[in-house]
């Protein structure tokens, strides 16, 4: 195993609000190797976006408190100055966001917005930067980039805008591309194109990718490693194979069960995880998924640690059930065979 490019150790992020302290991210650790894709999945409010924004330094503010370490090439990004963080953003870490309709500034041309990103980090003339912008638009699959470079965002479709966002994020050849739900706001056909594009470009640009989504179908296409997050914590972690073929955590079963499947008998209603994600001001004691978990028992009042419970190294979970119990029970949730399920 090579030295990871990015290593997050016991990261916690909390925000002081009027209602109390929100512990948005609580003890998250993971590593990202060069050229790999890490998928982070979870519901809204599970802390996946806050984790990503914290890597970029975008959650810094007067009411934010950080714990743990974010080591990038050995530097703890949580401790560098705002000014130094500015040089990492864009050049070492690029980010694309959920809503391409609002993520581009409506009053500047697409080309200007790419050129601005390039010239923030490189001493390069306007004409040269513009040629780079056209080349980037070509790489992300915008037809006629020579004329499209002078369009305004409102002259682009949603998918094209997300392509332009990718061009901006990759403009300075970052080592890590963070994609925060990049396909959520797009049509299904466009989603697939964007996922393909990211996975092609990551090889072309030799970048690692952190791909955040609530869509396990998307993750299955692109990720090498997967983190499943719930209520600010990692509840299961493993390779794509581990998570899809041997899921250990009832929450992961619930996510897997809520995907419509063509390869299984049809069910009347898709599985849903009952209830709402908990408040992060006063999270439940013990296992945080306990209040919504149909398999909870007495022991769950005690907090399960994230550790390896199966014989695959690197496959970690937080659930007290024995491995045999889990393997016996999970199919009822993931792939119910009767319509009554």
């Amino acid at each position, binding site marked *: 195993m090579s030295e990871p490019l990015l290593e997050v150790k016991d990261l916690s992020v909390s925000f002081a609000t009027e209602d109390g302290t929100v512990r948005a991210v609580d003890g998250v650790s993971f590593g990202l190797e060069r050229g790999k894709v890490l998928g982070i999945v979870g519901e809204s409010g599970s802390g996946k976006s806050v984790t990503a924004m914290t890597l970029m330094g975008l959650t810094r503010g007067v009411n934010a408190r950080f714990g743990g370490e974010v080591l990038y090439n050995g530097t703890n990004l949580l401790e560098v100055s705002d000014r130094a963080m500015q040089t990492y*953003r864009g050049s070492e870490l690029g980010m694309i*966001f959920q*809503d391409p309709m609002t*993520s*581009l500034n409506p009053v500047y041309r697409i080309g200007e917005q790419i050129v601005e*990103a390039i010239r923030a980090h490189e001493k390069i003339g306007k004409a040269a930067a513009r040629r780079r912008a056209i080349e980037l638009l070509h790489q992300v699959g915008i037809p006629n980039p020579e004329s499209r470079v002078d369009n305004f965002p409102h002259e682009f479709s949603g998918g094209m805008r997300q392509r332009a*966002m990718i061009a901006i994020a990759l403009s300075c050849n970052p080592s890590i591309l963070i994609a925060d739900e990049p396909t959520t706001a797009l049509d299904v056909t466009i989603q697939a194109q964007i996922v393909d594009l990211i996975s092609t470009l990551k090889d072309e640009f030799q970048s690692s990718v952190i791909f955040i989504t609530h869509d396990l179908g998307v993750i299955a296409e692109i990720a090498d490693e997967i983190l499943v997050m719930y209520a600010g914590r990692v509840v299961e972690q493993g390779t794509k194979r581990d998570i899809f073929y041997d899921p250990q955590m009832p929450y992961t079963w619930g996510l897997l069960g809520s995907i419509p499947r063509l390869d299984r008998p049809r069910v009347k209603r898709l599985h849903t995880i009952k209830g709402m994600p908990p408040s992060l001001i006063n999270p439940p004691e013990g296992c945080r998924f306990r209040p919504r978990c149909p398999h909870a028992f007495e022991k769950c009042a005690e907090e399960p640690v994230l550790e390896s419970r199966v014989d695959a190294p690197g496959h970690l979970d937080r659930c007290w059930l024995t491995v045999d119990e889990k393997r016996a029970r999970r199919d009822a949730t993931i792939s119910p065979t009767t319509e009554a399920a």
Partner: protein
Amino acid sequence: MVAFLIRRVVGMVLVLIAVSFITYLIFIKIPGGDPAQRLAGRTATHANIESIRIKLGLNHPFIVQWFDMVKSLLSGTLVSYFNGGTNVVDQIKQGLPATFSLCLGAGIIWLFFGILVGVISAASAGRFSDRAITALALIGISLPVVWLGLVLRYLFAEGGWISSFPDGGYYPFTQNPWEWATHLILPWITLAVLFIGFYGRVLRSNILDTINEDFVRTAKAKGLSPRRIMTKHVLRASLIPIVTLFGLDFAAVLGGGAIITETVYSLQGVGYYAYQSIQAQDLPALMGVTLYGAAFIVVFSVLVDIAYAYLDPRIRLT
């Protein structure tokens, strides 16, 4: 663009016709407004009043009276009822240098300081400087112009504290620019204070809204400096509503809306002329200043729309 301009010019003409008509209607209908009776004096006979009425054309039907008045105003021959029947257009022209000098200076001051105040208080939102600026802005908005004008005049021109400035009046720029400026500094400040407070408050809340926009987060993620994010991305979007406000406010004061400031400092501008005409209930003069002011408002509202299309490429002029 051409179609837009043609449509707007036609609209402007219609608005001005309506304004002149309503002005006339209001004047005729208000009680105690019969100019013939007032011109004739306390001891006039009925025949006396009637002859004056015929002389002024007040015996014609309403529509004809209105039409004649607008026609003579446009041809520059309209004379006022009182003050010896001076030419209305000439009177307005005489007021222009003072009014334009007052408004240009005050407009520059209030726009500059309004933006400065808004940016500083938004940048330090929640901290002491923001609270202090907010309090000052509210005081500025609340100060009555009459009071502020008189107090400044007392403190800085009449020896209340220091007599550094001349005490009212207008000095033509062409004769002595230095005297022109010193005569105008107090009126500029008086007129600008209200707008500075108001613009600062509006801009502050616009900036704080814009800062949470997704495209600002994108700008941060690109690694731009905070200064560049503020000037290029946040301020540009936040200034669009300020452009509307400024266009219409500036048009209003240019159009004779700075009545109080002009009166307090005895600047013989259009606002002062309007004030006199209102006091005398002098219909031709009132019609002149009303249409003059309305013309500024309609022209500037077109300019504001053109500026909008320039500032936001999504807006097309149609």
